[in-house]
């Protein structure tokens, strides 16, 4: 029975994708670009003079990714506080070392989160996660709406040399690691 339920859930996932909190998505779409700019080394991460905001998703979450794209464009209108940006929608399966990204935002995935984490580490870029749980897999930031908006950060990735956030950001985030959540 248990197997049946599990299989059902997997099937549903495959068939219909993950369910996302729209409010959370909007909050993340609104805040993450701002956090990106809190990196003192943002200049090193520009590609062709632009910020490439890469959103990785499962095939079924394309619409969600697109929604996010639209929301960011609507909010930022092509510029992150002076920097022109380009949103790059990439499926998890397509993510490779060739993928261009100044920052990466990962939607949910059962299989590729670690791949995203590795990608980010390799590139030395900030990796945002929709789901806080993914931080344990190696992603850097996530945001949760509790009584107030709470930013979470993976403590283990704090020392990535290519990323240098302003101190105040580090003082306001909540740190998590593999052992603690």
């Amino acid at each position: 029975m248990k197997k049946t339920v599990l299989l059902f859930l997997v099937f549903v996932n495959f068939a219909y994708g993950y369910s996302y909190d729209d409010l959370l998505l909007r909050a993340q779409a609104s805040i993450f670009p701002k956090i990106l700019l809190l990196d003192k080394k943002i200049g090193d991460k520009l590609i062709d003079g632009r910020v490439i905001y890469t959103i990785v998703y499962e095939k079924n979450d394309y619409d969600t990714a697109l929604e996010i794209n639209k929301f960011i464009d609507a909010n930022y209108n092509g510029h992150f506080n002076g920097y022109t940006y380009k949103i790059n929608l990439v499926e998890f399966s397509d993510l490779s070392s060739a993928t261009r990204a100044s920052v990466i935002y990962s939607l949910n995935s059962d299989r590729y989160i670690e791949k995203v984490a590795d990608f980010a580490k390799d590139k030395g870029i900030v990796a945002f996660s929709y789901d806080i749980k993914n931080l344990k897999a190696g992603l850097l930031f996530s945001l949760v709406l509790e009584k107030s908006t709470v930013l979470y950060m993976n403590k283990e990735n704090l020392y990535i040399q290519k990323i240098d956030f302003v101190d105040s950001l580090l003082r306001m985030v909540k740190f998590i690691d593999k052992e603690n959540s």
Partner: protein
Amino acid sequence: MSIKNGVINSLSTKIVTSIGVVSVLITLVIFSVSEKITKDAFSGVELEKADLIARTIEPLIAINIYLDMPENIAQLAQQLMENRYILSVKVLDDKNKIVNEVESGEYQKDIEDSFVVEKILNQPNSAKQIGKLVLVYSNKRYVELVDKYTNMTILLLLALAVLFILYGLYIKKMLAPLGQIAKLLKHYSPDKEVDIPFLSQNNEIGLISNALNSMQQKILQYSKKQKNINHYLEEKVNEKTLELREQLYIDTLTELPNRFSLLNDIFKSREGALLVINIDDFKEINDFFGHVAGDNILKKFSNRLKSMFKNNEHIRLKRLSGDEFALLFMQKPPLEDFIKSAEKLINDVEKMIFIYKKNEISIRITIGGAYQIERALEKADIALKSAKRERKSFLLYDEKLNIEELYKDNMEWVRKLKKAIEQDMIVPYFQPIFDNKSEEIASYECLIRLVESNGNVVSPYLFLTIAKKSRVYSELTRIMIEKSCQHFENIDCDFSVNLSVDDILNDEIVNEIKQKIKKYSVENKIIFEILESEGIENYEEVSLFISEMKKLGCRIAIDDFGSGYSNFEHLLKLDIDYIKIDGTLIKNLDKDANAQVVVETIVDFANRLNILTVAEFVHNEAVLKRVKELKVNRSQGFFLGIPEANTDIHMLRHADSKIILK
């Protein structure tokens, strides 16, 4: 300690008070400055705290504004408000719109003295301003600190005050020995040795005590020496005083008691008599033999007098002045004995011969005696002068002579004369002298008169003799010369002025006469009348004067000729122009045959020498007639004309009388 107006000002009190005042002032200044600094520091610390809080929280607030997380800002604000000193937190966005504002319950109460910190919020990792943080920090802590500081200060001041009191007591105790030493020395006397305390102290007090002790020893020694010296000096002073006293009463030349001694003895005596002895013409001995000889004779004379009276203990011999001695009879002898003593002394002295350098010198004396002890010296002196004047060798003072009154009268006349000179009351009166042949006025004699303020004319017989004895006489001569010459300056008539021998001997008068004669051009009108009796003794000087005046053109008359011992030999030598025959010969000429013989002889003698004769005192017609018969050239007298203040009157009267005679 010093004492002023009875108040003792302690040195230790002064020291402590001055240090206390200075210290209080310094402390006040230090505390005022330190309070200001401390308060500023406390304020700065509190402000710094508020600023630190604001700076600490500012990035978080900024990032929350940036990330648009107002609930986080509110949370942060609430966290801040947990600090009891934070009164309010206000966050504003870039449009000054309040994002969050929290205030404590004490906000309104303490807002005025609170610290307000404002921070501009910039976008993280950018310079873009995104808001503002206003933090109001309570001054409660500051007030607490200031109160604590004030309490500490008061405690410190109290501690200092206690310290000063203790210090003052210590200084007082330290300087107390000085007071004790001063008290001990207050009644110090060089005669009495005192035990000076604190000699063993090894400090400044000990030094002072030792120094005082040493000084005391020296003073004692000095005092002993001084006493010996004083004793010696007192003895010397007494000796010298005795010596000086003796000198005061002893004449150094003759070693006889002097005038002071005489006065002293007279003052002490109740009865007695006095003889004052004067050596006649002693000046001549001095002039001829010299003062050494004079002193020698005085010594010898005094020695002889001493030996004469040495056996009579009641007679004291004194020397009064140069040539004056006195014999004071301490017991009044009978008057006859007293007079005999004087006469015997005169005779004895006349027999004395003094030898000086082989010269035999004899002297004569004149004695004045007083037979009363009261004012004996003055009386004997008066008697002596009277004796001299009367050319007697001895005269006893006689109350009946009223000599004192005469002296007073003389002094009164001298005073009157001085006043008359000052007030120009001395004037010449003019008496005409007629030529017996032509019966015309030949000349005028200028006679002195004193016209008193009431117009009374005083005759010269009352004052001229007295004036001659005083210094005013020369002044009278000056006035008479001046006024007479001035009167006859413009009158074509001869006039005569009387001159005494004293005037002729006075160079100043002679010079002035010459000046006045020239000034008024009366050389050929003036005739000087010189008294025959006075001129004899000073023949040479008179002769010189006559010679000088004759050279000027003046003429000379011998006045009162025949009154004295007329010396025809002298007259022959003097180049005179007139002889005025004395009035005593003329006034009885009509009756006295002897007078007629004398006048005839004088006229004959004068005619032979071409000297004109003038008869004075022609007081009636019989005398005038006789004068003319004896061929006297000129006549003068009350019968012919009395002295008048103006010559015009005579001229008018004479004109009238001539008409009547004719």
